[in-house]
Protein backbone atom coordinates (compact mmCIF):
# COMPACT_ATOMS: atom_id res chain seq x y z
CA UNK A 1 0.00 0.00 0.00
CA UNK A 2 2.62 2.48 1.10
CA UNK A 3 4.98 1.44 -1.69
CA UNK A 4 2.32 1.75 -4.33
CA UNK A 5 1.56 5.32 -3.35
CA UNK A 6 5.19 6.29 -3.29
CA UNK A 7 5.58 4.91 -6.82
CA UNK A 8 2.59 6.94 -7.98
CA UNK A 9 4.06 9.93 -6.22
CA UNK A 10 7.39 9.44 -7.97
CA UNK A 11 5.69 9.30 -11.35
CA UNK A 12 3.74 12.44 -10.52
CA UNK A 13 6.87 14.29 -9.41
CA UNK A 14 8.66 13.41 -12.62
CA UNK A 15 5.64 14.32 -14.74
CA UNK A 16 5.35 17.58 -12.84
CA UNK A 17 8.94 18.59 -13.50
CA UNK A 18 8.68 17.67 -17.17
CA UNK A 19 5.35 19.45 -17.65
CA UNK A 20 6.39 22.66 -15.91
CA UNK A 21 9.69 22.69 -17.77
CA UNK A 22 7.86 22.40 -21.08
CA UNK A 23 5.61 25.29 -20.08
CA UNK A 24 8.60 27.39 -19.12
CA UNK A 25 10.24 26.59 -22.46
CA UNK A 26 7.04 27.55 -24.27
CA UNK A 27 7.34 30.95 -22.67
CA UNK A 28 10.77 31.70 -24.04
CA UNK A 29 11.03 29.64 -27.24
CA UNK A 30 9.34 32.42 -29.26
CA UNK A 31 11.83 34.94 -27.89
CA UNK A 32 14.78 32.63 -28.63
CA UNK A 33 13.45 32.05 -32.14
CA UNK A 34 13.46 35.80 -32.79
CA UNK A 35 16.97 36.15 -31.41
CA UNK A 36 18.15 33.26 -33.61
CA UNK A 37 16.61 34.89 -36.70
CA UNK A 38 18.28 38.21 -35.92
CA UNK A 39 21.69 36.50 -35.73
CA UNK A 40 21.33 34.36 -38.83
CA UNK A 41 22.30 34.76 -42.43
CA UNK A 42 19.59 36.29 -44.67
CA UNK A 43 19.52 33.32 -47.04
CA UNK A 44 19.00 30.82 -44.23
CA UNK A 45 16.25 32.99 -42.74
CA UNK A 46 14.37 33.22 -46.02
CA UNK A 47 14.67 29.49 -46.56
CA UNK A 48 12.99 28.97 -43.20
CA UNK A 49 15.96 27.04 -41.85
CA UNK A 50 16.37 29.01 -38.65
CA UNK A 51 14.71 27.44 -35.64
CA UNK A 52 16.20 28.06 -32.23
CA UNK A 53 19.88 28.41 -33.08
CA UNK A 54 21.43 30.94 -35.49
CA UNK A 55 22.34 29.49 -38.89
CA UNK A 56 25.54 30.93 -40.41
CA UNK A 57 26.00 33.25 -37.48
CA UNK A 58 26.29 36.91 -38.46
CA UNK A 59 25.73 40.36 -37.01
CA UNK A 60 24.61 41.66 -40.42
CA UNK A 61 21.09 42.53 -39.25
CA UNK A 62 22.45 44.58 -36.37
CA UNK A 63 25.05 46.25 -38.58
CA UNK A 64 22.31 47.18 -41.01
CA UNK A 65 20.28 48.55 -38.11
CA UNK A 66 23.14 50.89 -37.20
CA UNK A 67 22.46 52.79 -40.41
CA UNK A 68 18.81 53.32 -39.55
CA UNK A 69 18.59 56.76 -37.99
CA UNK A 70 14.85 56.41 -37.40
CA UNK A 71 15.29 53.49 -35.05
CA UNK A 72 17.77 55.27 -32.83
CA UNK A 73 15.87 58.54 -32.92
CA UNK A 74 12.78 56.67 -31.68
CA UNK A 75 14.90 55.03 -29.02
CA UNK A 76 16.07 58.48 -27.91
CA UNK A 77 12.45 59.65 -27.59
CA UNK A 78 11.69 56.58 -25.48
CA UNK A 79 14.68 57.14 -23.19
CA UNK A 80 13.71 60.78 -22.66
CA UNK A 81 10.12 59.76 -22.04
CA UNK A 82 11.07 57.13 -19.45
CA UNK A 83 13.36 59.62 -17.71
CA UNK A 84 10.67 62.34 -17.49
CA UNK A 85 7.97 59.85 -16.53
CA UNK A 86 9.99 58.44 -13.64
CA UNK A 87 10.66 61.89 -12.19
CA UNK A 88 7.13 63.24 -12.62
CA UNK A 89 5.21 60.10 -11.69
CA UNK A 90 7.35 59.48 -8.61
CA UNK A 91 6.90 63.07 -7.45
CA UNK A 92 3.14 62.79 -7.83
CA UNK A 93 2.97 59.41 -6.10
CA UNK A 94 5.03 60.59 -3.12
CA UNK A 95 3.16 63.89 -2.77
CA UNK A 96 -0.18 62.06 -2.69
CA UNK A 97 0.92 58.87 -0.95
CA UNK A 98 2.31 60.49 2.19
CA UNK A 99 -0.78 62.59 3.11
CA UNK A 100 -3.10 59.67 2.35
CA UNK A 101 -1.11 57.38 4.63
CA UNK A 102 -2.25 59.48 7.59
CA UNK A 103 -5.31 58.40 9.55
CA UNK A 104 -8.46 60.50 9.38
CA UNK A 105 -7.64 61.75 12.86
CA UNK A 106 -4.24 62.97 11.72
CA UNK A 107 -5.52 64.38 8.44
CA UNK A 108 -9.17 65.41 8.61
CA UNK A 109 -9.69 65.77 4.88
CA UNK A 110 -8.22 62.36 4.05
CA UNK A 111 -11.53 60.74 3.17
CA UNK A 112 -12.36 63.47 0.68
CA UNK A 113 -9.08 62.98 -1.14
CA UNK A 114 -9.43 59.18 -1.05
CA UNK A 115 -12.69 59.52 -2.95
CA UNK A 116 -11.16 62.00 -5.35
CA UNK A 117 -8.46 59.52 -6.33
CA UNK A 118 -10.75 56.48 -6.18
CA UNK A 119 -13.29 57.96 -8.56
CA UNK A 120 -10.51 58.75 -10.98
CA UNK A 121 -9.47 55.11 -10.85
CA UNK A 122 -13.00 53.84 -11.41
CA UNK A 123 -14.19 56.08 -14.20
CA UNK A 124 -12.33 57.79 -16.98
CA UNK A 125 -13.24 59.89 -19.96
CA UNK A 126 -12.18 57.19 -22.38
CA UNK A 127 -10.04 57.32 -25.46
CA UNK A 128 -11.86 59.97 -27.49
CA UNK A 129 -12.58 62.73 -24.89
CA UNK A 130 -9.05 62.33 -23.51
CA UNK A 131 -7.62 62.68 -26.99
CA UNK A 132 -9.69 65.79 -27.69
CA UNK A 133 -8.69 67.41 -24.40
CA UNK A 134 -5.01 66.74 -25.05
CA UNK A 135 -5.47 68.19 -28.53
CA UNK A 136 -7.25 71.31 -27.26
CA UNK A 137 -4.49 71.93 -24.76
CA UNK A 138 -2.06 72.06 -27.65
CA UNK A 139 -0.05 69.12 -26.36
CA UNK A 140 -0.25 66.99 -29.50
CA UNK A 141 3.14 66.22 -30.96
CA UNK A 142 4.97 67.07 -27.72
CA UNK A 143 6.59 64.64 -25.33
CA UNK A 144 4.38 66.00 -22.54
CA UNK A 145 1.35 64.32 -24.07
CA UNK A 146 3.06 61.00 -23.33
CA UNK A 147 4.18 61.82 -19.79
CA UNK A 148 1.63 64.08 -18.10
CA UNK A 149 -1.79 62.43 -18.72
CA UNK A 150 -0.90 59.26 -16.80
CA UNK A 151 1.36 60.94 -14.25
CA UNK A 152 -0.99 60.48 -11.30
CA UNK A 153 -1.60 56.78 -10.85
CA UNK A 154 -4.04 55.87 -8.09
CA UNK A 155 -2.71 52.33 -8.11
CA UNK A 156 0.83 53.51 -7.37
CA UNK A 157 -0.45 55.87 -4.69
CA UNK A 158 -2.28 53.02 -2.95
CA UNK A 159 0.87 50.91 -3.05
CA UNK A 160 2.97 53.65 -1.46
CA UNK A 161 0.46 54.70 1.18
CA UNK A 162 0.02 51.07 2.27
CA UNK A 163 3.75 50.78 2.71
CA UNK A 164 4.04 54.00 4.69
CA UNK A 165 1.14 52.87 6.90
CA UNK A 166 3.02 49.70 7.71
CA UNK A 167 5.98 51.69 9.11
CA UNK A 168 6.06 51.99 12.90
CA UNK A 169 4.26 55.17 14.01
CA UNK A 170 6.84 55.93 16.72
CA UNK A 171 9.51 56.88 14.20
CA UNK A 172 7.37 59.62 12.69
CA UNK A 173 6.09 60.74 16.09
CA UNK A 174 9.61 61.16 17.40
CA UNK A 175 10.40 63.33 14.42
CA UNK A 176 7.45 65.56 15.25
CA UNK A 177 8.53 65.74 18.86
CA UNK A 178 11.89 66.97 17.63
CA UNK A 179 10.05 69.78 15.89
CA UNK A 180 10.13 68.50 12.31
CA UNK A 181 7.17 69.37 10.07
CA UNK A 182 5.58 67.12 7.45
CA UNK A 183 8.01 68.05 4.69
CA UNK A 184 11.08 67.31 6.79
CA UNK A 185 9.58 64.09 8.13
CA UNK A 186 8.72 62.95 4.64
CA UNK A 187 12.15 63.78 3.27
CA UNK A 188 14.37 62.71 6.15
CA UNK A 189 12.43 59.85 7.78
CA UNK A 190 9.77 58.36 5.54
CA UNK A 191 11.43 58.28 2.12
CA UNK A 192 14.65 56.59 3.31
CA UNK A 193 12.54 53.88 4.95
CA UNK A 194 10.50 53.45 1.77
CA UNK A 195 13.41 52.55 -0.49
CA UNK A 196 12.14 49.06 -1.41
CA UNK A 197 8.69 50.24 -2.45
CA UNK A 198 10.12 53.29 -4.23
CA UNK A 199 12.44 51.02 -6.20
CA UNK A 200 9.48 48.83 -7.13
CA UNK A 201 7.51 51.85 -8.31
CA UNK A 202 10.42 53.23 -10.35
CA UNK A 203 10.80 49.88 -12.09
CA UNK A 204 7.07 49.63 -12.78
CA UNK A 205 7.00 53.12 -14.26
CA UNK A 206 10.09 52.49 -16.36
CA UNK A 207 8.69 49.28 -17.81
CA UNK A 208 5.23 50.76 -18.39
CA UNK A 209 6.58 53.80 -20.23
CA UNK A 210 9.13 51.86 -22.21
CA UNK A 211 6.41 49.48 -23.38
CA UNK A 212 3.68 52.06 -24.01
CA UNK A 213 3.01 52.57 -27.71
CA UNK A 214 -0.61 53.54 -28.23
CA UNK A 215 -0.44 57.10 -26.89
CA UNK A 216 2.71 57.59 -28.89
CA UNK A 217 0.83 56.53 -31.98
CA UNK A 218 -2.20 58.78 -31.53
CA UNK A 219 -0.71 61.85 -29.84
CA UNK A 220 2.29 62.22 -32.13
CA UNK A 221 1.53 63.53 -35.58
CA UNK A 222 4.96 63.04 -37.04
CA UNK A 223 6.66 59.63 -37.11
CA UNK A 224 9.99 61.20 -36.14
CA UNK A 225 8.42 61.99 -32.76
CA UNK A 226 7.32 58.40 -32.16
CA UNK A 227 8.78 56.61 -29.16
CA UNK A 228 10.39 53.28 -29.97
CA UNK A 229 7.43 50.97 -29.43
CA UNK A 230 5.09 53.17 -31.49
CA UNK A 231 7.69 53.28 -34.26
CA UNK A 232 8.04 49.50 -34.15
CA UNK A 233 4.27 49.10 -34.19
CA UNK A 234 4.29 50.64 -37.65
CA UNK A 235 7.23 48.48 -38.76
CA UNK A 236 6.84 45.10 -37.15
CA UNK A 237 3.11 44.57 -36.99
CA UNK A 238 1.74 43.90 -40.41
CA UNK A 239 -0.48 41.00 -41.16
CA UNK A 240 0.34 40.07 -44.67
CA UNK A 241 -2.83 39.80 -46.70
CA UNK A 242 -0.94 38.42 -49.67
CA UNK A 243 -0.56 35.17 -47.76
CA UNK A 244 -4.21 34.40 -48.29
CA UNK A 245 -4.31 35.28 -51.95
CA UNK A 246 -1.54 32.87 -52.88
CA UNK A 247 0.82 35.45 -54.22
CA UNK A 248 4.12 34.09 -55.44
CA UNK A 249 6.23 33.97 -52.26
CA UNK A 250 9.31 35.26 -54.07
CA UNK A 251 7.55 38.58 -54.57
CA UNK A 252 7.03 39.04 -50.86
CA UNK A 253 9.25 41.40 -49.00
CA UNK A 254 11.22 38.87 -47.02
CA UNK A 255 14.61 40.48 -46.71
CA UNK A 256 13.24 42.50 -43.82
CA UNK A 257 12.82 39.53 -41.51
CA UNK A 258 16.25 39.55 -39.89
CA UNK A 259 16.10 43.29 -39.58
CA UNK A 260 12.72 43.22 -37.88
CA UNK A 261 13.87 40.49 -35.52
CA UNK A 262 16.91 42.56 -34.57
CA UNK A 263 14.70 45.58 -33.83
CA UNK A 264 12.32 43.49 -31.71
CA UNK A 265 15.20 42.06 -29.75
CA UNK A 266 16.86 45.43 -29.15
CA UNK A 267 13.55 46.90 -27.97
CA UNK A 268 13.22 44.00 -25.54
CA UNK A 269 16.78 44.23 -24.28
CA UNK A 270 16.24 46.98 -21.66
CA UNK A 271 13.42 44.92 -20.15
CA UNK A 272 15.69 41.88 -20.00
CA UNK A 273 18.36 44.02 -18.33
CA UNK A 274 16.11 45.23 -15.51
CA UNK A 275 14.32 41.89 -15.27
CA UNK A 276 16.43 40.48 -12.41
CA UNK A 277 15.66 43.58 -10.32
CA UNK A 278 12.02 43.48 -11.36
CA UNK A 279 11.75 39.89 -10.22
CA UNK A 280 13.32 40.73 -6.90
CA UNK A 281 10.79 43.48 -6.19
CA UNK A 282 7.56 42.75 -8.01
CA UNK A 283 6.55 39.71 -5.98
CA UNK A 284 6.48 41.90 -2.90
CA UNK A 285 4.82 44.73 -4.81
CA UNK A 286 1.95 42.68 -6.15
CA UNK A 287 1.22 41.01 -2.86
CA UNK A 288 1.29 44.36 -1.10
CA UNK A 289 -1.20 45.83 -3.53
CA UNK A 290 -3.56 42.94 -3.96
CA UNK A 291 -4.10 40.95 -0.79
CA UNK A 292 -3.96 43.60 1.83
CA UNK A 293 -6.73 43.09 4.38
Amino acid at each position, binding site marked *: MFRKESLGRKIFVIFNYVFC*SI*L*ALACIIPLIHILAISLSDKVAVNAGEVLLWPVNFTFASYEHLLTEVKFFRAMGVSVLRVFLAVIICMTMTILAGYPLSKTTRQFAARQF*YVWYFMIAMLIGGGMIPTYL*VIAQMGMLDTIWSLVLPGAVSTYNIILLQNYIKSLPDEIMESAFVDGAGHWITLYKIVLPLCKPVLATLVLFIMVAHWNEWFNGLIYMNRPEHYPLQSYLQTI*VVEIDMS*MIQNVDPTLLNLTQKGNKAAQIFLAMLPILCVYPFLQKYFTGGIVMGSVKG
Partner: protein
Amino acid sequence: MKEKKKKGFWRTIKKDGALHLMIAIPVIMLFVFHYISLAGIIIAFQDYKPAKGFFQSEFVGLENFRTLFYTPGFLVSLRNTVIIACGKIVLGIVVPVTIALLLNEMKKNGIKRVIQTLIYLPHFVSWVLLAGIIIEILNPRDGLLNQFLGIFGVEPIYFLGDADLFRPILWITDIWKEFGYSTIIYLAALAGVDTALYEAAALDGAGHMQKVWHVTLPGIAPTIVLMMTLKLGSVLDAGFEQVYNLYSAVTMETGDIIDTLVYRLGIGGGQFSIAATAGLFKSVIASVLIVVSYKLAYKFSGYRVF
Protein backbone atom coordinates in the same frame (compact mmCIF):
# COMPACT_ATOMS: atom_id res chain seq x y z
CA MET B 1 -23.39 77.96 14.10
CA LYS B 2 -22.40 78.37 10.51
CA GLU B 3 -19.64 80.71 11.58
CA LYS B 4 -18.31 78.11 13.97
CA LYS B 5 -18.31 75.38 11.37
CA LYS B 6 -16.45 77.64 8.98
CA LYS B 7 -13.87 78.38 11.62
CA GLY B 8 -13.45 74.64 12.23
CA PHE B 9 -12.87 74.13 8.55
CA TRP B 10 -10.24 76.85 8.36
CA ARG B 11 -8.59 75.51 11.46
CA THR B 12 -8.12 72.06 9.97
CA ILE B 13 -6.80 73.63 6.78
CA LYS B 14 -4.28 75.53 8.85
CA LYS B 15 -3.42 72.55 11.04
CA ASP B 16 -2.91 70.18 8.13
CA GLY B 17 -1.66 72.92 5.83
CA ALA B 18 1.49 71.10 4.78
CA LEU B 19 -0.46 67.95 3.92
CA HIS B 20 -2.95 69.92 1.81
CA LEU B 21 -0.10 71.65 0.07
CA MET B 22 1.60 68.35 -0.73
CA ILE B 23 -1.46 66.68 -2.14
CA ALA B 24 -2.52 69.80 -4.05
CA ILE B 25 -0.11 69.16 -6.91
CA PRO B 26 -1.33 65.62 -7.76
CA VAL B 27 -4.90 66.77 -7.19
CA ILE B 28 -4.53 69.55 -9.75
CA MET B 29 -2.76 67.24 -12.21
CA LEU B 30 -5.53 64.70 -11.89
CA PHE B 31 -8.13 67.42 -12.36
CA VAL B 32 -6.53 68.69 -15.55
CA PHE B 33 -5.79 65.33 -17.14
CA HIS B 34 -8.61 63.21 -15.82
CA TYR B 35 -11.60 65.14 -14.61
CA ILE B 36 -11.63 67.56 -17.54
CA SER B 37 -11.61 64.66 -19.99
CA LEU B 38 -14.36 63.12 -17.89
CA ALA B 39 -16.36 66.26 -18.57
CA GLY B 40 -15.43 65.81 -22.24
CA ILE B 41 -17.84 62.87 -22.27
CA ILE B 42 -20.38 65.58 -23.02
CA ILE B 43 -19.57 65.14 -26.71
CA ALA B 44 -21.44 61.83 -26.56
CA PHE B 45 -24.56 63.98 -26.29
CA GLN B 46 -23.47 66.49 -28.94
CA ASP B 47 -22.92 66.57 -32.64
CA TYR B 48 -19.31 67.42 -31.97
CA LYS B 49 -17.42 69.36 -34.62
CA PRO B 50 -13.73 69.98 -33.95
CA ALA B 51 -14.02 73.48 -35.41
CA LYS B 52 -16.79 74.39 -32.96
CA GLY B 53 -15.24 72.79 -29.90
CA PHE B 54 -16.86 71.54 -26.70
CA PHE B 55 -18.97 74.62 -26.08
CA GLN B 56 -20.33 75.53 -29.49
CA SER B 57 -21.25 72.07 -30.78
CA GLU B 58 -24.93 71.29 -31.08
CA PHE B 59 -26.70 69.23 -28.41
CA VAL B 60 -28.52 66.18 -29.74
CA GLY B 61 -29.55 64.39 -26.55
CA LEU B 62 -29.53 60.62 -26.88
CA GLU B 63 -29.50 60.68 -30.68
CA ASN B 64 -25.94 59.32 -30.77
CA PHE B 65 -26.97 56.23 -28.82
CA ARG B 66 -29.64 55.48 -31.36
CA THR B 67 -27.19 55.98 -34.22
CA LEU B 68 -24.68 53.80 -32.41
CA PHE B 69 -27.01 50.82 -32.19
CA TYR B 70 -27.64 51.10 -35.93
CA THR B 71 -23.94 51.46 -36.70
CA PRO B 72 -22.90 48.38 -38.63
CA GLY B 73 -20.55 46.36 -36.53
CA PHE B 74 -21.44 47.74 -33.12
CA LEU B 75 -23.50 44.80 -31.93
CA VAL B 76 -20.97 42.42 -33.47
CA SER B 77 -18.17 44.14 -31.59
CA LEU B 78 -20.18 44.02 -28.37
CA ARG B 79 -20.73 40.28 -28.77
CA ASN B 80 -17.06 39.69 -29.62
CA THR B 81 -15.95 41.75 -26.65
CA VAL B 82 -17.99 39.70 -24.18
CA ILE B 83 -17.01 36.34 -25.68
CA ILE B 84 -13.30 37.17 -25.87
CA ALA B 85 -13.21 38.71 -22.40
CA CYS B 86 -15.13 35.89 -20.71
CA GLY B 87 -12.86 33.27 -22.25
CA LYS B 88 -9.86 35.18 -20.94
CA ILE B 89 -11.36 35.50 -17.46
CA VAL B 90 -12.04 31.76 -17.17
CA LEU B 91 -8.59 30.80 -18.46
CA GLY B 92 -7.04 33.54 -16.37
CA ILE B 93 -8.26 31.82 -13.20
CA VAL B 94 -8.05 28.12 -14.09
CA VAL B 95 -4.57 28.06 -15.63
CA PRO B 96 -2.70 30.11 -13.00
CA VAL B 97 -4.33 28.22 -10.11
CA THR B 98 -3.40 24.87 -11.69
CA ILE B 99 0.17 25.92 -12.39
CA ALA B 100 0.54 27.39 -8.92
CA LEU B 101 -0.61 24.07 -7.42
CA LEU B 102 1.88 22.17 -9.58
CA LEU B 103 4.73 24.54 -8.71
CA ASN B 104 3.79 24.23 -5.06
CA GLU B 105 4.42 20.47 -5.28
CA MET B 106 8.04 21.11 -6.26
CA LYS B 107 10.80 21.31 -3.74
CA LYS B 108 12.54 24.66 -3.49
CA ASN B 109 15.45 24.11 -5.84
CA GLY B 110 17.21 25.54 -8.86
CA ILE B 111 14.82 24.06 -11.40
CA LYS B 112 11.80 25.63 -9.73
CA ARG B 113 13.52 29.01 -9.60
CA VAL B 114 14.45 28.84 -13.28
CA ILE B 115 10.91 27.82 -14.25
CA GLN B 116 9.44 30.71 -12.28
CA THR B 117 11.90 33.17 -13.78
CA LEU B 118 10.99 32.09 -17.31
CA ILE B 119 7.21 32.07 -16.95
CA TYR B 120 7.06 35.60 -15.52
CA LEU B 121 8.99 37.05 -18.45
CA PRO B 122 6.37 37.47 -21.23
CA HIS B 123 4.27 39.68 -18.94
CA PHE B 124 6.88 42.41 -19.20
CA VAL B 125 7.11 42.46 -23.00
CA SER B 126 4.77 44.83 -24.84
CA TRP B 127 2.00 43.59 -27.11
CA VAL B 128 3.67 45.33 -30.03
CA LEU B 129 6.78 43.20 -29.77
CA LEU B 130 4.84 40.06 -28.90
CA ALA B 131 2.53 40.63 -31.87
CA GLY B 132 5.59 40.97 -34.10
CA ILE B 133 6.86 37.65 -32.74
CA ILE B 134 3.48 35.92 -32.89
CA ILE B 135 2.89 37.03 -36.49
CA GLU B 136 6.27 35.61 -37.41
CA ILE B 137 5.76 32.30 -35.60
CA LEU B 138 2.25 31.77 -36.96
CA ASN B 139 3.01 32.68 -40.55
CA PRO B 140 1.95 29.98 -42.98
CA ARG B 141 5.08 29.98 -45.14
CA ASP B 142 7.84 29.09 -42.70
CA GLY B 143 6.49 29.98 -39.27
CA LEU B 144 7.84 27.95 -36.37
CA LEU B 145 4.45 26.48 -35.44
CA ASN B 146 3.60 25.43 -38.98
CA GLN B 147 7.04 23.84 -39.35
CA PHE B 148 6.41 21.94 -36.13
CA LEU B 149 2.94 20.82 -37.24
CA GLY B 150 4.44 19.89 -40.59
CA ILE B 151 6.38 17.11 -38.85
CA PHE B 152 3.04 15.45 -38.20
CA GLY B 153 1.92 16.00 -41.76
CA VAL B 154 -0.38 18.95 -41.07
CA GLU B 155 -0.81 21.30 -44.01
CA PRO B 156 0.32 24.89 -43.32
CA ILE B 157 -2.42 26.88 -41.60
CA TYR B 158 -2.75 30.65 -41.93
CA PHE B 159 -3.65 31.12 -38.29
CA LEU B 160 -4.12 34.89 -38.32
CA GLY B 161 -6.03 34.83 -41.60
CA ASP B 162 -8.82 32.58 -40.34
CA ALA B 163 -11.78 34.16 -38.58
CA ASP B 164 -12.69 30.91 -36.81
CA LEU B 165 -9.25 30.60 -35.27
CA PHE B 166 -8.92 34.21 -34.18
CA ARG B 167 -10.61 34.04 -30.78
CA PRO B 168 -8.77 30.88 -29.69
CA ILE B 169 -5.54 32.58 -30.76
CA LEU B 170 -6.40 35.61 -28.63
CA TRP B 171 -7.19 33.38 -25.64
CA ILE B 172 -4.05 31.29 -26.00
CA THR B 173 -1.63 34.15 -26.60
CA ASP B 174 -3.16 36.12 -23.74
CA ILE B 175 -2.85 33.28 -21.26
CA TRP B 176 0.63 32.56 -22.60
CA LYS B 177 1.66 36.13 -21.78
CA GLU B 178 -0.03 36.42 -18.40
CA PHE B 179 -0.34 33.01 -16.70
CA GLY B 180 3.10 33.06 -15.13
CA TYR B 181 2.67 36.46 -13.62
CA SER B 182 -0.80 35.56 -12.34
CA THR B 183 0.58 32.52 -10.49
CA ILE B 184 2.49 34.85 -8.15
CA ILE B 185 -0.58 35.75 -6.16
CA TYR B 186 -1.69 32.14 -5.79
CA LEU B 187 1.82 31.04 -4.82
CA ALA B 188 1.76 33.69 -2.11
CA ALA B 189 -1.61 32.35 -0.93
CA LEU B 190 -0.27 28.78 -0.98
CA ALA B 191 2.73 29.80 1.09
CA GLY B 192 0.29 31.19 3.64
CA VAL B 193 -1.56 27.90 4.21
CA ASP B 194 -0.96 26.75 7.79
CA THR B 195 1.52 23.81 7.75
CA ALA B 196 0.00 22.46 10.95
CA LEU B 197 -3.10 21.58 8.92
CA TYR B 198 -1.02 19.32 6.66
CA GLU B 199 0.49 17.57 9.65
CA ALA B 200 -2.96 17.08 11.15
CA ALA B 201 -4.25 15.70 7.86
CA ALA B 202 -1.25 13.33 7.63
CA LEU B 203 -1.96 12.06 11.16
CA ASP B 204 -5.52 11.37 10.06
CA GLY B 205 -4.09 9.26 7.26
CA ALA B 206 -4.77 11.61 4.35
CA GLY B 207 -2.96 10.83 1.13
CA HIS B 208 -1.36 13.44 -1.06
CA MET B 209 -4.39 14.14 -3.23
CA GLN B 210 -6.61 14.27 -0.18
CA LYS B 211 -4.34 16.88 1.38
CA VAL B 212 -4.55 18.99 -1.77
CA TRP B 213 -8.31 18.62 -1.85
CA HIS B 214 -9.06 19.13 1.84
CA VAL B 215 -6.30 21.47 2.97
CA THR B 216 -4.66 23.27 0.06
CA LEU B 217 -7.71 24.20 -1.99
CA PRO B 218 -9.81 25.44 0.93
CA GLY B 219 -6.72 27.35 2.05
CA ILE B 220 -6.47 29.32 -1.17
CA ALA B 221 -10.22 29.47 -1.88
CA PRO B 222 -10.60 33.01 -0.46
CA THR B 223 -7.89 34.24 -2.84
CA ILE B 224 -9.54 32.49 -5.80
CA VAL B 225 -12.94 33.95 -4.93
CA LEU B 226 -11.40 37.39 -4.50
CA MET B 227 -9.65 37.25 -7.88
CA MET B 228 -12.82 36.00 -9.57
CA THR B 229 -14.83 38.85 -8.09
CA LEU B 230 -12.31 41.47 -9.07
CA LYS B 231 -12.25 40.10 -12.64
CA LEU B 232 -15.97 40.74 -12.92
CA GLY B 233 -15.09 44.33 -13.75
CA SER B 234 -13.26 43.30 -16.90
CA VAL B 235 -16.14 41.57 -18.70
CA LEU B 236 -16.03 44.32 -21.34
CA ASP B 237 -12.26 44.47 -21.41
CA ALA B 238 -11.20 42.21 -24.23
CA GLY B 239 -7.66 43.60 -24.47
CA PHE B 240 -7.35 46.45 -26.95
CA GLU B 241 -3.56 46.28 -27.34
CA GLN B 242 -3.58 42.61 -28.21
CA VAL B 243 -6.51 42.72 -30.63
CA TYR B 244 -5.33 45.91 -32.33
CA ASN B 245 -1.96 44.38 -33.08
CA LEU B 246 -3.23 41.01 -34.26
CA TYR B 247 -6.48 41.62 -36.12
CA SER B 248 -7.02 42.38 -39.78
CA ALA B 249 -9.86 42.76 -42.26
CA VAL B 250 -10.37 38.99 -42.48
CA THR B 251 -10.67 38.46 -38.74
CA MET B 252 -12.78 41.55 -38.08
CA GLU B 253 -16.01 39.57 -37.92
CA THR B 254 -14.92 37.53 -34.90
CA GLY B 255 -12.22 39.79 -33.54
CA ASP B 256 -13.45 43.37 -33.68
CA ILE B 257 -14.11 44.64 -30.16
CA ILE B 258 -15.67 47.83 -28.81
CA ASP B 259 -12.31 49.46 -28.15
CA THR B 260 -11.02 48.85 -31.66
CA LEU B 261 -14.32 50.11 -33.07
CA VAL B 262 -14.03 53.28 -30.97
CA TYR B 263 -10.52 53.78 -32.26
CA ARG B 264 -11.47 53.31 -35.91
CA LEU B 265 -14.55 55.52 -35.70
CA GLY B 266 -12.94 58.27 -33.64
CA ILE B 267 -9.23 58.63 -34.26
CA GLY B 268 -9.37 56.92 -37.65
CA GLY B 269 -12.66 58.28 -39.01
CA GLY B 270 -13.14 61.57 -37.18
CA GLN B 271 -16.63 60.56 -35.98
CA PHE B 272 -15.77 61.73 -32.50
CA SER B 273 -19.30 61.85 -31.10
CA ILE B 274 -20.31 58.33 -32.11
CA ALA B 275 -16.96 56.95 -30.97
CA ALA B 276 -17.25 58.70 -27.61
CA THR B 277 -20.78 57.33 -27.28
CA ALA B 278 -19.54 53.79 -27.82
CA GLY B 279 -16.77 54.42 -25.29
CA LEU B 280 -19.27 55.82 -22.80
CA PHE B 281 -21.59 52.85 -23.29
CA LYS B 282 -18.72 50.55 -22.43
CA SER B 283 -17.35 52.52 -19.51
CA VAL B 284 -20.74 52.98 -17.83
CA ILE B 285 -21.30 49.22 -17.79
CA ALA B 286 -17.70 48.59 -16.79
CA SER B 287 -17.83 51.11 -13.93
CA VAL B 288 -21.00 49.57 -12.55
CA LEU B 289 -19.44 46.11 -12.74
CA ILE B 290 -16.25 47.30 -11.04
CA VAL B 291 -18.13 48.96 -8.20
CA VAL B 292 -20.27 45.83 -7.75
CA SER B 293 -17.19 43.62 -7.81
CA TYR B 294 -15.44 45.76 -5.19
CA LYS B 295 -18.52 45.63 -2.99
CA LEU B 296 -18.74 41.85 -3.36
CA ALA B 297 -15.02 41.48 -2.70
CA TYR B 298 -15.41 43.52 0.45
CA LYS B 299 -18.31 41.35 1.54
CA PHE B 300 -16.58 38.04 0.81
CA SER B 301 -13.12 38.73 2.08
CA GLY B 302 -13.00 42.17 3.63
CA TYR B 303 -10.96 43.37 0.65
CA ARG B 304 -10.42 47.11 0.68
CA VAL B 305 -8.65 49.16 -1.90
CA PHE B 306 -7.59 52.09 0.25
